[in-house]
């Protein structure tokens, strides 16, 4: 009985994860290493990877900052009423429930060329939709809950006693945060950063809608994979996808390592 269950588990893992992954790896090298290298060093592929890198950096920075602050407010703030806090708390999760395509559609509807806000920005000379800012906003929307949800439970767990003690002893807000709160939340923040990087690296639906997928301008690595597949250039798609997958596996390993550190503090 036991053997059977273990064998079945291996079977599911093999069929669902291991076989597709190895198939993609061999597929990327189907034209030899040169084919893989050529697929990666196409100008549009290099540009797409650079765009992805830029989006990841900007989004991770903004989300870390605002995510930690939001978590602090949702757990600690006394100036928000309890009802309002509960409401805000449930709103944080909403991006999880929103399909990425709808997330992108929201940004287009709100800031696109047909909307009043979009017209306003256009007059100032800032292009948001079908340009870099829109892609950042879409990715921010999708990744917003990750950091908040990682930091909040830790804040709840450590309680506010130590922080109160610190401020009774005369420490100011910043000092209390850096000396008391930060050391206990840093691994949770680290974990949140990894999750955010992984998610924004792989974001596809929202970015595809918002960016317009313009080659050498707003194309990211994931949307390039999509375009390659649409153009029946599967080998080239495999090359870019393999690089993305390698990053994801690296992040996954980092996640496992952080998880262990997080448990120990």
């Amino acid at each position, binding site marked *: 009985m036991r053997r059977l269950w273990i064998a079945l588990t291996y079977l*599911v893992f093999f069929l669902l994860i291991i076989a597709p992954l190895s198939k993609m790896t061999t597929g990327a090298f189907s034209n030899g290493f040169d084919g893989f290298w050529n697929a990666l060093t196409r100008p549009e592929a290099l540009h797409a990877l650079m765009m992805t890198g830029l989006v990841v950096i900007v989004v991770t920075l903004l989300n870390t900052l605002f995510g930690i602050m939001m978590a602090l407010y949702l757990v600690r703030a006394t100036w928000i009423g309890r009802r309002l806090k509960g409401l805000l708390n449930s709103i944080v999760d909403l991006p999880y429930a929103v*399909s990425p395509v709808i997330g992108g559609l929201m940004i287009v509807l709100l800031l696109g060329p047909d909307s009043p806000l979009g017209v306003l920005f256009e007059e100032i000379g800032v292009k948001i939709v079908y340009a870099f800012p829109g892609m950042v906003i879409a990715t921010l929307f999708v990744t917003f809950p990750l950091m908040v949800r990682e930091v909040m439970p830790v804040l709840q767990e450590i309680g506010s006693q130590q922080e109160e003690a610190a401020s009774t002893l005369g420490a100011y807000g910043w000092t209390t945060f850096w000396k008391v709160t930060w050391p206990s939340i840093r691994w949770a923040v680290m974990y949140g950063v990894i999750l955010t990087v992984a998610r924004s690296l792989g974001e596809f639906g929202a970015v595809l809608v918002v960016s317009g997928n313009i080659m050498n301008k707003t194309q990211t690595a994931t949307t390039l994979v*999509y375009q390659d597949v649409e153009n029946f250039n*599967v080998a080239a798609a495999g090359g870019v996808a393999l690089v993305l997958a390698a990053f994801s596996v690296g992040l996954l390993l980092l996640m496992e390592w952080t998880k262990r550190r997080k448990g120990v503090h």
Partner: protein
Amino acid sequence: MNSLLRHKGWTWGFRTTILLYFVVLIVLPILGVYYNSFSLGFRSFFESVTDPIAWKSVLLTLKLAIIATLINVFAGTMIAWVLIRYKFPGKSILNSLVDLPFALPTAVGGLMILLLLGPGSFIGKAAEALGFEIVFHQPAIVIAMIFVTFPFVIRAVQPLLEELDPSEEEAAYTMGAKGSRVFRKVILPSMLPGMISGGMLAFSRALAEFGAVVLVAGNIPGRTLVSSVFIFGEVESDNPVGAAAVSVILLTLSFLILWLINMVQMRGRRS
């Protein structure tokens, strides 16, 4: 420096910035979709929704997501059980691999399935010879959904199994209960909350999935066109109002599921 940092204006500025960021980034876009779908009046909303391509895509998505979720609930519970209860070579590697579908970009996931099962591959040819069609047909969409939502049930059931007190099981065995009876009366009830909440998360994710599905689905209206791909098509063909109408249905459904999950978890905590 400190006196400058302690100024009250800082606190106010900070609080307003954070809350404003939150409202502008999350709340405003969601309200925007609801507003836009009704912007041409209720009639046009109704027309967009009752367009056969639109409502068939919603129904198809629901159907396929339910199939994917059921498979995931069974396979996920089994895997969670094996990973917690049994010791075998490669266990910790499998346990780390569980999260891979979360970490992989969904478009990469879709490409992987396309390469493995596509017309040029070994499995694709074999299936074709047997008269099955996988890629660009419904089975591929279900497989893509299963792949993307794979970790949810496992990760929801695992902690429950870990918490389960072995003495409860032992007591049942001591009193002479058979293995299957112990499973039904002791183990299954303690796994059930995880199966339900994990299953619902998987369901809502499967409903929303786009990246993996768009690469493997044939996108034939009524047959293999799921709603997220339909919405994308409407946006591409410059019909944001029609896209918004279908989005509103999908969104409302997702929010309902999210609310249900919260209720289940709250009740689980209280009892």
